[in-house]
């Protein structure tokens, strides 16, 4: 390491713009991007190659959010979808949209961002042969079935619903009415792509080029990515620091230790074991903010026992037997908030968050719980087994606590037990192939802050993440109606009506909303997390 240390000092001396303290700090690798110091931040190895439509997890999404700007952007504070590259998104029928792209935007390699940059990117993302893991986000666009058929070979390479009108205008035709479609366009999947992506795909993957406030200076897969501020960035949300070094940590505990030792500036994942100490370790530099994540217990409706009529009483009884207040306080140190509906507080009241929608069913009442379960015919087989994966996320702790709570309420030691599965991959394959016979843990992290995103993918008949195969005609009807509604307030009201259907059947048991947690070094200021629990990097000031 001695050689590398020399190199670092040389770099520090050469980059006169860098404050001397930034070099002495030692926390950050790489040079500055011309003004402002570089901060280091914890990162997890992205699961897939970094492509907008191939990223369906937070770590890859984090980078995309730094190097890309799309038509819309979600306000880091309120979560509201605001115009970014979109000058205008016009529609008269919620099905045909005309999108005008702002002038003056370029990719960091100088190429202009045009309507074609979007259309090409979306066509690429949707096409089956490119195997993009988030392809289904394009499914509302007309022609998706030809480009990405459920079975067999694709019959078209481009979406028939996309048309380039001129350099700055393109039209989108959807296969069904979807009024909140423009609000989904802030999701990273809908980012524009430069020609370089298509011309030399391998080179692009090694060092992705985007149009966001940062550019990638270097990327060593599996260990580190150096991002520097892009000075020519035309947007209003310019970076207020010289850049960000993302360091891959295999264990959040090590990242936290590094933060305490002054070897790291920012971590956005305080490990469960440290939650208790974090407020005293970090003082005001501890972050605990609401994020668009809800944890639930889902049920296998494909199973005769759980699918039969009258079981809603059992599910409601189970829900009432869970002491959410105590569990969130003792296990999670208030980094979880007891859920009272099936969405998230980050939506805001206007966006459809309705506190207390679950009502009495989410209130701890052991007496009533026992009575309801008996009325519903008792637990199938006399016992519930809550399945979870044991390899990550410390799910065992809360599953045991939930079971304990249920057992106390029912006065039966064996009424509820946890049923661990070794790896996440195995757990996922069992849930998606409907191989579980009892309730299982389920969590939902929103793609975009819309009430639609908390309901449709999870509860609509045969929806992609409806792992329990719950189905209700009234719910489907209300969702269709809400999607067709052009007035957003009315649409939200309809979604809430649909959510009431979920409640009345207790399709899943809502447990708690998850907060984002983090901590940062003294030399940083203006650090906060957005509703996706990702730090708002552009706002962070160093020194």
């Amino acid at each position, binding site marked *: *390491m001695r050689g590398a240390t020399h190199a670092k000092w040389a770099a520090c001396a050469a980059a006169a713009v860098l404050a001397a303290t930034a070099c002495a700090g030692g926390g950050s690798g790489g040079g500055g991007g011309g003004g402002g110091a570089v901060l280091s931040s914890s990162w997890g190895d992205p699961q897939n190659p970094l492509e907008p439509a191939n990223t*369906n997890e937070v770590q890859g999404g984090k980078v995309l959010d730094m190097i890309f700007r799309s038509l819309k952007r979600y306000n880091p504070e309120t979560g509201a979808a605001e115009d970014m590259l979109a000058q205008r998104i016009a529609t008269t029928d919620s099905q045909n949209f005309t999108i005008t792209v702002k002038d003056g935007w370029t990719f960091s390699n100088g190429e202009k961002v045009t309507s074609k940059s979007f259309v090409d990117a979306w066509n690429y993302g949707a096409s089956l042969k490119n195997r993009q893991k988030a392809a289904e986000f394009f499914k509302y666009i007309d022609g998706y079935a030809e480009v990405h058929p459920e079975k067999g070979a694709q019959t078209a390479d481009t979406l028939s619903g996309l048309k380039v009108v001129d350099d700055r205008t393109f039209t989108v035709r959807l296969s069904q009415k979807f009024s909140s479609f423009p609000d989904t366009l802030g999701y990273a999947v809908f980012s524009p792509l430069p020609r370089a992506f298509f011309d030399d795909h391998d080179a692009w993957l090694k060092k992705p080029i985007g149009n966001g406030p940062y550019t990638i200076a270097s990327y060593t897969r599996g260990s580190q990515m150096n991002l520097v501020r892009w000075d020519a960035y035309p947007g209003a949300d310019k970076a207020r620091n010289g850049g960000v070094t993302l360091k891959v940590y*295999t264990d959040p505990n090590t990242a936290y230790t590094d933060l305490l*030792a002054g070897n790291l500036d920012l971590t956005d994942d305080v490990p469960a074991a440290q939650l208790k100490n974090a407020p005293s370790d970090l003082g005001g530099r501890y972050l605990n903010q609401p994020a668009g994540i809800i944890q639930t217990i889902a049920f296998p409706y494909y199973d005769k026992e759980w699918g039969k009529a009258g079981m809603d009483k059992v599910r409601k009884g189970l829900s009432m037997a869970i002491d959410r207040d105590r569990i969130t306080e003792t296990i999670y140190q208030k980094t979880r908030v007891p859920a009272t509906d099936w969405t998230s507080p980050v939506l805001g009241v206007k966006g459809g968050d309705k506190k207390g929608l679950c009502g009495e069913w989410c209130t701890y009442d052991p007496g009533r719980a026992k009575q309801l379960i008996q009325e519903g015919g008792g637990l199938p087989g006399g016992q519930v087994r809550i399945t979870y994966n044991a390899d990550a996320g410390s799910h065992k702790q809360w599953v045991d606590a939930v079971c304990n709570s249920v057992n106390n309420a029912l006065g039966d030691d064996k009424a509820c037990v946890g049923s661990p599965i070794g790896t996440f*991959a*195995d757990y996922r394959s069992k849930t998606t192939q409907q191989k579980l016979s009892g309730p299982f843990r389920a969590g939902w992290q929103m793609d975009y802050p819309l009430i639609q995103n908390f309901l449709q993918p999870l509860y609509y008949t045969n929806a992609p993440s409806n792992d329990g195969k719950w189905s209700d005609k009234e719910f489907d009807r209300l969702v269709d109606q809400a999607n067709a509604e052009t007035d957003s307030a009315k649409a939200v009201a309809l979604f809430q009506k649909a959510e009431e259907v979920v409640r009345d059947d207790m399709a899943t048991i809502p447990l708690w909303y998850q907060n984002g947690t983090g901590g940062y070094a003294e030399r940083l200021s203006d650090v906060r997390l957005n509703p996706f629990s990702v730090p708002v990097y552009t706002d962070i000031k160093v020194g």
Partner: protein
Amino acid sequence: MGRYVVRRLLQMVPVFIGATLLIFLMVNVMGDPVAGLCGERTCDPATTAQLEKEFGLDRPVWQQYLTYMGNVFTGDFGTAFNGQPVTELMSTAFPVTARLTIVAILFEIVIGITLGVITGLRRGRPADTGVLLATLVVISVPTFVTGLLLQLLLGVEWGWIKPSVSAAAGFDELLVPGLVLASVSLAYVTRLTRTSIAENRRSDYVRTAVAKGLPHRRVVTRHLLRNSLIPVVTFIGADIGFLMGGAIVTERIFNIHGVGYQLYQGILRQNTQTVVGFVTVLVLVFLVANLLVDLLYAVLDPRIRYA
């Protein structure tokens, strides 16, 4: 000697095939790789089918194994799910772990054998009892406790080291992790050497050497130690493989991106290609290390001959 080596190398072939087959089957039994690949959100069926086709997961397991082995012999270990060739992962991970292992082995040899000789020569004295107690403590405390404790004390409280190792992972950064990794084996090496030295001290050839009037130093290093090292060398040889494969805990604590890390990720994400590839190389390391140990016997004790 030459024939012996050839025979040993040939014996490796069935061991190698058997080991890879077992690992291949185990990883395949664990579950569906594509489900893990897509994360919390299920991939749509069409994409899943495409991915299965790409990774050859739609074919029967025996066919997958044959294809895989065929590729391995041409040096192609497949592609990890993040799009990186497994050989590329190996070329970054193995050097790091090799450095860590070298540091650990050096600690074992230098500290372990020295302590072993000292205590073996002074059996029953306070120094001996002290070292015996210390090794007992080291053996009974799990590695992750030692690791976390050292990390906290040296890294956070006193600030002597950085709590995590940088991506470059140079030798100087690996000293503490290497010591942690070596700790348990080090204790065993000490105890093995001690017993062996204490036993051989009473043997005829040592008595003869002393009677000849050889200097004490020469008696110990040339006569006593050389003959006492056989069990120790056996242990250290086998340990090379164990340290490389078993560094998962240490690597995790100190954020070292080596073999343990890649294996852990591979298992977590059900990444057959990564797991089988890395284990295959580890099996080879084991086999070669064992062969070297056997050959070293003859150097240490010329009475041992290979037919």
